[in-house]
């Protein structure tokens, strides 16, 4: 396989990421007003810092809002097709999901398959009252009937382009880049 990568285009700088997180938090706060029910679940890896930031902003005035961490590896629909198997990390939901208003959080929405896996996993862990989906970037090309309720930014890009989000907590800096790919297989 011969992949020609064009130079990366910046989608958001650090200020852009932080402003987008603030907007997302506002939108969530306007929609889910009962803070006693509200909980965040971040999908590993970069849904986790985003979930923590959203919980931090919405819970700033009162008691801290619960944040869980979901590893969806065991729920992937392509496990039988990948070898060796990906590393499994811990799922940590330190609160009861039942009757909660859960905001599922990921950095980028693409095919929707990760979200499908996350929903199945959540349902095995409890019975939330509602589940909403928040993402920093929706890049389109969904393969399943799944849409986000809270979107930081909608992006038009090619199906093989790479959208890369970085967070201070996981990558040492905030930012988002588009890595266009003219995938040429030979």
């Amino acid at each position, binding site marked *: 396989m011969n992949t020609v990568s064009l130079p990366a285009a910046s989608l958001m700088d650090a200020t852009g990421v932080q402003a987008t997180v603030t907007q997302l938090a506002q939108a969530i706060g306007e929609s889910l007003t009962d803070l006693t029910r509200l909980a965040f679940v971040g999908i590993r890896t970069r849904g986790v810092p985003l979930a923590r930031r959203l919980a931090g902003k919405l819970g700033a005035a009162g008691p801290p809002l619960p944040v869980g961490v979901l*590893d969806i*590896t*065991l*729920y992937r629909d392509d*496990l*039988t097709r*990948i*070898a*060796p*198997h*990906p*590393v*499994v*990390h*811990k*799922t*940590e939901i330190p609160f009861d999901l039942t009757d909660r208003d859960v905001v599922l959080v990921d950095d980028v929405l693409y095919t929707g398959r990760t979200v499908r896996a996350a929903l*199945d*996993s959540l349902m*095995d*862990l*409890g019975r939330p009252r509602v589940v909403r989906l928040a993402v920093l970037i929706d890049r389109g090309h969904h393969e399943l009937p799944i849409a986000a309720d809270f979107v930081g930014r909608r992006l038009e890009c090619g199906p093989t382009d790479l959208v890369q989000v970085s967070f201070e907590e996981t990558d040492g800096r905030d930012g988002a880049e588009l890595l266009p790919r003219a995938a040429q297989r030979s």
Partner: protein
Amino acid sequence: MSFKRKDLLGIEPLEAEEIQLILDTAESFKEVSTREIKKVPALRGKTVINIFLEPSTRTRTSFEIAEKRLSADTLSLAAATSSLTKGETLYDTAMNLEAMQPDFLVVRHSCAGAPHFLARICRASVINAGDGAHEHPTQALLDALTIREKKGRLEGLRVAIVGDIAHSRVARSNFHLLTKMGASVIACGPPTLLPPELDRFGVEVTSHFDAALEGADVVMMLRIQLERQQALNFPSLREYHQLYGLTLARLRRARPDAIVLHPGPMNRGVEIASEVADSGVSVILEQVTNGVAVRMAVLYLVSGGVPLGDSA
């Protein structure tokens, strides 16, 4: 690091990084068993056949639970009810099972090397659940997970493994695992139960129980195999208990924060006194809990292994 083996036949062929990966994966799997719905879909549509040609409660139950918590379809064969009692060879039994397209064979056999033989002739992944006095890899892995949880590490620990070393596959797998992970190991037992080939494992050997306990972080007591009593390896169970039975008084020679492991089934009052087995230093039931997580991790990793890879 990724796990590329199709089979898990023993600890001896594994690299330290592979052991590390299995233990880390097992740690992630522990949470599944604490859920209200104790199941993940990772092995949905896969079939596991457990072939236990030697008696077992703990290991077989543990494997079956691990398989079910991964959503695999499972069935178990026992020696007494299988065609092997009608004289069918292991080869033919295996070929007939293979013809039904299982994905895993979990094998316990009284002959060392039986799982290796099956791994060579079967497409299915083979997991060794104990072969003769050779290896019992998942037991050593669950022991290591338990020690790591309690001590935070394996490297640099002093581990005394005490009892019937000669007949113990648990001891052999633990020698390999613990030395690969940088622990120092002392094998201890009556001279009649210490086989001469122990030097090749890189462990210290002694028949002096108190010396073995001196400064130990971990004490692993092995079962005296009562069914082998006729071999006259020691005069009486009572004498064995006096010389090699772990009591609280004896345990004082180990480090004050030492923990005690036993692979089960225990002979209370022989190799281990009840006052030790039931005390706070004993992690015997944690071992059992960890056994399920370790077996889930092994099944998961092996199922992503590449067929025809090196499975020596």
